[in-house]
């Protein structure tokens, strides 16, 4: 984690989906070492908000700023600094866990095979390295997705319901990962229905319909 503190700033985001005004003037900021927990009922736009922060979805109004600059202008640099986990673990069913990591993390930074294996091991799926993703259980796939986030060494983690399908051990592991990440100066936005009990203070935001 490099030394310079970063900040993420979401300013007055408005998004319409057809006729529905899904996000109405959402604004907040996250600094280095902070975790923002986003929660709310179904259909309130949590996933939409995360996709706007990623840069996948362009808001009708408002902007997202990374260290003061609008993400539109620094797209490559911003994407290099973030890791996004969506609802599905986003793994190719026909590739092994290791290959999945190699082909996704490998696009962001040069990473030796040994490090990928170690990361898989750290997430408890070291034994699955040579297995195709389609034979893994939902929980194991979720852990491989976590390994991918770790291996990317991203500053900003954008996690959409990351605790789905994780058992108690897996949830504990993820919480530890979040602790370490924010402890080293990383930022995280986590959409989750459950409580996040970390040792550190958490920012919380509820989206209402």
């Amino acid at each position: 984690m490099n030394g310079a503190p970063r900040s993420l700033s979401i300013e007055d985001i408005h998004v319409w989906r057809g006729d529905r005004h899904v996000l109405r003037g959402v604004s907040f900021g996250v600094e280095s070492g902070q975790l923002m927990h986003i929660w709310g009922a179904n259909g309130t736009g949590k996933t939409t908000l995360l996709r706007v922060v990623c840069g996948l979805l362009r808001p009708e109004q408002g902007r997202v700023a990374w260290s003061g600059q609008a993400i539109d202008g620094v797209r490559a640099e911003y994407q290099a600094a973030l890791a996004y986990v969506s609802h599905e673990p986003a793994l190719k069913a026909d590739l092994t866990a290791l290959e999945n990591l190699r082909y996704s993390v490998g696009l962001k930074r040069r990473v030796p095979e040994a490090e990928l294996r170690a990361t898989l091991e750290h997430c408890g799926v070291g034994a699955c390295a040579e297995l195709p993703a389609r034979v893994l259980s939902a929980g194991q796939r979720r852990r491989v997705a976590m390994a991918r986030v770790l291996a990317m060494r991203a500053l900003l983690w954008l996690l959409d319901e990351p605790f789905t399908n994780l058992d108690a051990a897996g949830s504990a592991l993820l919480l530890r990962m979040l602790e370490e990440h924010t402890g080293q100066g990383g930022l995280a936005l986590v959409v989750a229905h459950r409580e996040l009990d970390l040792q550190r203070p958490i920012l919380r935001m509820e989206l209402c319909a």
Partner: protein
Amino acid sequence: MWTWFYRLASPPHVYRTAAALAPWFLALAAAMIGYGLIDGLVFAPPDYQQGDAFRIIYVHAPSAWLSLFAYTTMAVAGAIALIWRIKVGFAVAAAAAPIGASFTLAALVTGSLWGRPMWGTYWAWDPRLTSELILLFLYFGVISLRKAFEDPARGDRAAALLGVVGVINVPIVHFSVTWWNSLHQGATLAKFGKPTMPGSMLWPLLAMLLGYMCFFGGVLCMRLRGEVLDRERQAVWVREALAP
């Protein structure tokens, strides 16, 4: 500096302007087409080669010209909407597409009817006819693509992009008669230099062309209003505009 342009392109302004312009366009169209048809069908002398069969040019050539003009309008409006995010451009593109497709179909049908006495066949696979047929398929593609999306905003953007991609066909249709040995006759109206047609035949043709363009303008304005309302149906100004 550009604020005046954005104000000009704002949906309520476009809605009101189109309402004001449409009757003028249509009146002018009626006058021009009326004059053109009467002069062209009755008063213009018969062609020394084709006799009276040539008179179909007064319907065929303007239709073909408009099919290209409408596609270009659709592509340019779509491009403006995509690049500068001026939403009314999507409404213009959506309004122009079916009109252009109809003109293309009219050009193909009238051309086919003309082909029988002139070339002995209703259809020939020559470059101009083929590229005009491709233009019709492109229109269908753009219209279908827009309708296929559940989210109308996405449909607008996808259709605009396809329109821009297909615009390459417009110069192909236009220049096909000069680039290849085509069965179809060459350009009647050159940009510079004397036209190859005598005045008595040319003036009604020009009148028809202008009349068709005004017709396109008028119908476009009418359809544009509907498209603008559809896209802005949640806005406050729409409720005020439609209040009895």
